[in-house]
């Protein structure tokens, strides 16, 4: 019994119960199989795997150099885009990229944990964690020109909501 102890609780599973135990495991298996096999089905829509260690101070310096060099200019093909999240802004605030070109975008933090959320007018939403001490490298290719906001979506302090940057994709 549920409330009072009883000896005869040990009943065999009825048909529906046996069927459902099997189904529940099948559901979990289908989902597990899908995610693992997706790495082979479409290797170009995956969570980025590349990351390297770098000190927060060093990273902010690199991002500032990058921001000065390409301020107002389109980043040429083959150049690694460097983005630093600091309380409470992105360095650089705006980046111009070419459509149809593969870029390496490396993002890390100059202080605490941030979140890198890419929100496009075309409905694109990508989210990655931004960690101090570790640069996360995503390889990305925008097909069409458009505007993508970069928002912080991991709470980083009182000015957290003001961390809004932009990636502008122009005709390649």
């Amino acid at each position, binding site marked *: 019994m549920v409330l009072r*102890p009883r000896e005869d609780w*040990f009943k065999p599973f009825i048909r529906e119960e046996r069927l*459902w135990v099997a189904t529940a495991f099948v559901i979990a298996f289908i989902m597990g199989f899908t995610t693992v096999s997706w790495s082979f089905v479409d290797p170009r829509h995956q969570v980025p795997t590349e990351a390297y260690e770098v000190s927060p101070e060093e990273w902010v310096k690199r991002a500032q150099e990058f921001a000065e060099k390409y301020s107002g200019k389109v980043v040429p093909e083959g150049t690694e885009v460097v983005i630093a999240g600091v309380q409470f802004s992105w360095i650089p605030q705006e980046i111009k990229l070419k459509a149809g070109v593969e870029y390496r975008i490396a993002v890390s933090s100059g202080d605490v944990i941030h979140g890198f959320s890419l929100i496009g007018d075309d409905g694109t939403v990508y989210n990655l964690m931004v960690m101090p001490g570790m640069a996360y490298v995503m390889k990305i290719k925008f097909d069409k020109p458009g505007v993508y906001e970069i928002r912080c979506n991991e709470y980083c302090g009182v000015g957290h909501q003001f961390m809004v940057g932009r990636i502008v994709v122009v005709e390649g």
Partner: protein
Amino acid sequence: MASEFRTCPVTGLLCHLPSQRVIIANFAMALISLAIGGLAAVFVGLSRSSIILLKDPASYYMWLTAHGLNMLIFWILWFEVALLYFTATVILNAPLYSVRLAWLAFVVMLVGQAVIEVLVFTGKASVLFTAYPPLKAHPLFYVGYLLFAAGVLVAVVVFFLTIYRARREGTFKGPLPLITFGAAIAAIIAVTVIFHGAVTLAYILAYVLGYVNTINIMFIRWYFWGFGHGAQYVNAVAMVTVWYALLVLATGGAAEKFINEKYARFAFALYTLFVIPAIGHHILVDPGYSEALKQASGSVGSHFLSVPSMLHALALLGGLEATMRAAGYRGLFTWLVKAPWRNPGIAALLMSMILFGLGGIVAQPQTTLQPNLMYHNTLWVPAHFHLTVAGGTTLAFMAVSYYLVPLLTLRKLVNYKLALLQVYLGFAGLLIMGLTMLWLGYLGAPRRTLLLENLVRPEWWTPMSILTIGVLLWLASGALYLLIMAATLVAGKRTSNPGELVEGLVEEVKTSETGEVSKRGSLIIVFILLFVIMLSLYFHSFIRLEGMPEIW
């Protein structure tokens, strides 16, 4: 010694009075925490809706921290400690192993909570529930957190010792009753949770105090979520336990023989296997962890964690079905149509199961490596845990207190119709909240962010307006619950008359012993919900991902 016990006029169980006082004290603290968390919910909920109540980010993040800690830690854990004591004493006809130790746990938890409340409300700890370093709070904040955890650990130990002594002294015969068994599973998971929490908090404390200079954030993220998400499985298991109790209490015991306990215990036991391997779904888009770990723990492990919950769905719905069939409602879905929808316990059981199920369904794409890219840290995540923890756990806990408080205090519930209204109001509010937050998350709206007017993207306004309605309904439901409880505890009519004590709460279902036990209708319902709808949403997420720019 004998005078310390009373016999429950309704169930005939023995109730140890000093133990009963501990249970009521823990329950009262749960209510106080819920009230504080609820006040915070006014500011958090309405600031994220189209009203944007707070314009000052500092106070928004302060209230958000207060909301998370009071709801997710204090309200739920105080309630669970009360529930653990209840299932180990009243249900087993036994006194607590040590009433003094239980009071010690109470005091330690109270001090821990008091320290945290003071620091949060003076603005010295606006680091949110997760408190990720290198963001720092006042050092005493972590001390308070650790104290509270230590108190819970003492309570869990008292729970196990109580069962041990009850077994040794033979106050109950045979196996543990199902709900004590469920509570014991929750307590076992709680031990692993407290271990992870203590490691994380002690490490952060050492960092904040300057004993260690650098902090390994990957380590913190993993261990924090061993605590943070593991704790949600203490809640989930306690909730399922409460679901069984509700089904039996609300049918006046009629459902007892239609629950297959072997099946239910098997499902409970599976939780202990699957909780720890599933920690990884929190680090799916963190740099530094290997893809193999992310896939094994984050995706595959987490999908298997949903198996026990899926099994319980059939056990409970099937239990109700078999009971109603034995009462003469034999059609495929007649039992559901004729179910006692006006009974607060059954209503809460069904509403809580729907919301928890929906929360579990939307969790599947979010816990999967590739689609998680689209949902991570968006409002999709709070939608998931408001559906599961508020809709599932909190609604179930609220409903079961309508049954247990009258039995423990021998005071009549002030108004069972208001209780029923509270359940449906809460369901409507949470469903609207859940769906609109999912919508916002789908559109990329960030969680834990005060979106001031100029920061709202135009496409977010519509769901934010609808969210307002959901928030207001759920706030009204929560306030109504606190009102009913306070009125019952303070001014409920004292009575020992069993009929009067459970008036309006129990639906006598007259079952006959004959006839086959069938759970066919329930099987069809859970199959459509969890096989068809869940997998459709799951594959939709992959198709949606394909339409976005290439990333790898």
